[in-house]
């Protein structure tokens, strides 16, 4: 049967298992929207295209599936660029469908024309311009395959209006074969044995886990290895949730705002197992002093990550889960022959003492509300079971430090790009992925205003997303840097002109709460979490509270500023 391009597109999406589409219509995509009512796919109308891409990203992070967004040509497409770069930096599988002017007009500076394939080339895993309807089904199939396989990432498909209108015979390509793309998943057996031997020889081993553990669903194997072999675990921001945050072997996050125990452990370890992490500058600090005593093992699915920032002793290109499972298989039969518990006891004790000497802490106040206290209360009230999205800055770091994540896919945060305005739309996407779960956006008063328009999306879809604004009237993280490194020159970081967030919530038809007294935090937070529908909680926190520990940019991990 002959179908139009729009019909073929929607049929392909359905066959790829797409249930939700985050989008915003426009002239170049009307033909797709015209067919949408005939499809079983739910469309979520956002209020800005950046909201659509972040929601698709949040959906992907919370569900592990591919998130999809649909926008029009020109400004619709360019509005997604920040979100595409966000997903690219964090290796999140999303497919972005953009409208394009009709093929005869491409290159003529037509109305709402932009070369979105050119613009997004450096921030997508791959992108396509479909010029011929006969390629459409293949391209959509490849786009989903590329987005979710290997090291996942965003894939953009640009769809000219005329290609959506013409008809062709629809043939579903059963196989996706690409001669130039064959990601390697299986770990090399010899390398696995090498790693196993290094673990057996190590006296002070440490696991440094990243987002790849979560992407590959390697958390169970990782937890097994850590617990059976008595190896302490630290993780990057992207890795939070890959190991239970309440386990005695858990050290907390490492790096710039990492814990004292984690950074000291890196500095003293004789073996560091980097799994699905990429030695980002926020993690390593000064690279030349990173893990100075350790042999480095680096497991990653992307060969370019290996030997990029640091040179490692044992590289292992493989899917993290398969590599961790292979390690488990290698270690399990001889587990009895080695006394890992006894062998690592003094090391584990030492690491735990560091944790006790300088735990994550803050000075509680009786007059002002400490933001860390608010996150702690959120953790208690939700029993650590909520999905936490964050914006970027101090709110993000406090959420990462004081909420003890137990499970993967429960912490949604823009790690690589550091995109303010990410959290709220991502929370909306996550709520669609997990309708039964409590989804909370831990926000700052600055970043929440970057995508505040999505309140309408949340309210009209009856979503129960809770926004907790740690409101200090500052762009807090920049202010912190200005305080510590720029002579307290708080240039343009004071945001004292802000909306009344309670009234704003009400204006959108949501519920607003304000907390100004320490004594009210627990009670009002509880009430807010129990209130159905979208809720904003405006928490007036200590204005000049800083995130500690802090390793100044470019310094060694041991040069920590502590509370």
């Amino acid at each position: 049967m002959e179908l139009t391009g729009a019909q073929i597109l929607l049929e392909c999406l359905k066959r790829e298992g797409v249930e939700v589409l985050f989008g915003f219509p426009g002239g170049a995509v009307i033909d797709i929207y015209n067919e949408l009512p005939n499809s079983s796919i739910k469309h979520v109308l956002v209020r800005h295209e950046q909201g659509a891409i972040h929601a698709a990203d949040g959906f992907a992070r919370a569900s592990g599936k591919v998130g999809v967004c649909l926008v029009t040509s020109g400004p619709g497409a360019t509005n997604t660029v920040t979100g595409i770069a966000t997903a690219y930096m964090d290796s999140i599988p999303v497919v972005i469908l953009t409208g394009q002017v009709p093929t005869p007009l491409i290159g003529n500076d037509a109305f709402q024309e932009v070369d979105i394939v050119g613009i997004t080339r450096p921030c997508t895993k791959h992108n396509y311009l479909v010029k011929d309807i006969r390629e459409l089904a293949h391209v959509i199939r490849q786009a989903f395959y590329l987005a979710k396989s290997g090291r996942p990432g965003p894939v953009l498909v640009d769809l000219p209006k005329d290609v959506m209108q013409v008809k062709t015979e629809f043939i579903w390509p059963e196989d996706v074969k690409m001669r130039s793309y064959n990601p390697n998943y299986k770990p090399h057996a010899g390398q696995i044995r090498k790693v196993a031997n290094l673990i057996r020889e190590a006296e002070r081993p440490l696991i440094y886990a990243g987002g790849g553990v979560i992407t590959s669903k390697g958390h169970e194997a990782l937890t097994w290895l850590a617990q059976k072999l008595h190896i302490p675990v630290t993780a990057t921001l992207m890795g939070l949730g890959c190991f239970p945050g309440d386990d005695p072997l858990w050290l907390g996050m490492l790096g710039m705002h990492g814990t004292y125990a984690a950074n000291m452990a890196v500095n003293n370890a004789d073996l560091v197992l980097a799994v699905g992490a990429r030695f980002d500058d926020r993690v390593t600090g000064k690279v030349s002093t990173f893990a100075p005593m350790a042999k480095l093992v680096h497991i990653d699915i992307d060969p370019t990550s290996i030997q990029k920032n640091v040179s490692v002793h044992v590289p292992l290109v493989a899917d993290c889960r398969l590599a961790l499972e292979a390690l488990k298989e290698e270690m399990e039969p001889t587990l009895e022959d080695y006394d890992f518990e006894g062998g690592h006891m003094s090391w584990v004790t030492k690491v735990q003492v560091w944790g006790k000497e300088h735990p994550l802490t803050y000075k509680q106040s009786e007059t002002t509300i400490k933001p860390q206290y608010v996150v702690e209360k959120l953790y208690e009230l939700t029993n650590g079971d909520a999905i936490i999205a964050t914006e970027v800055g101090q709110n993000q770091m406090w959420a990462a430090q004081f909420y003890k994540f137990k499970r993967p896919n429960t912490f949604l945060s823009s790690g690589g790009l550091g995109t303010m305005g990410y959290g709220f739309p991502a929370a909306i996407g996550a709520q669609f992925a997990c309708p039964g779960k409590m989804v909370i956006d831990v926000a700052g008063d600055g970043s929440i205003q970057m995508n505040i328009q999505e309140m309408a999306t949340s309210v009209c879809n009856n979503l129960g997303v809770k926004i907790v604004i740690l409101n200090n009237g500052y762009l807090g993280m920049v202010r912190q840097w200005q305080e510590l490194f720029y002579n307290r020159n708080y240039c343009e970081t004071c945001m004292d002109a802000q909306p009344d967030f309670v009234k704003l919530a009400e204006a959108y038809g949501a519920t607003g709460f304000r907390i100004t007294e320490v004594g009210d935090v627990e009670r009002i937070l509880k009430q807010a979490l129990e209130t159905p529908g979208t809720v904003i909680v405006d928490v007036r926190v200590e204005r000049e509270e800083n995130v500690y520990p802090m390793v100044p940019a470019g310094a060694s991990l041991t040069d920590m500023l502590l509370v």
Partner: protein
Amino acid sequence: MRHTLSVTVENEPGVLSRVSGLFTGRGFNIESLNVGPTLDPGVSVMTITTEGDEQIIEQIVKQLRKLITVIKVVDLTEMKSVLRELVMLKVNANDANRAEILRVVDIFRCKVVDVSIDELTIEATGNHEKISAIVGLLTRFGIKEISRSGMVAMKRSTQG
């Protein structure tokens, strides 16, 4: 150290900007880049010469392989290969020095492809060093125009 990479790519729009964008975006250096068709109309071969230490070259090769439209990357520097560049030079020539220029042309087995009263246009092929030597020798006569092709390369057949 200079490396010559042979990069087999899908012959489709945008592939050149994917490759060149990778170099600019990551701060790698392209010394020369040459693209041409192969017997398979769906496939092109790029010859890229670039410079960098071992770690940078390793990154360049891996990053190229990561591009979806790149089928194969071979670093010809590590193997026996034939490297050739073509150059065309328009050189000032008068009665006093024409014979001397022609001697250089002869020694380097170049070709004169165009002649006028006061100019000689010379075509030369060879590896990078030979071309540079020719250019160096002819500079003193005054080179009015130069056009270099960039490197093309091929791995040598394995000896039986």
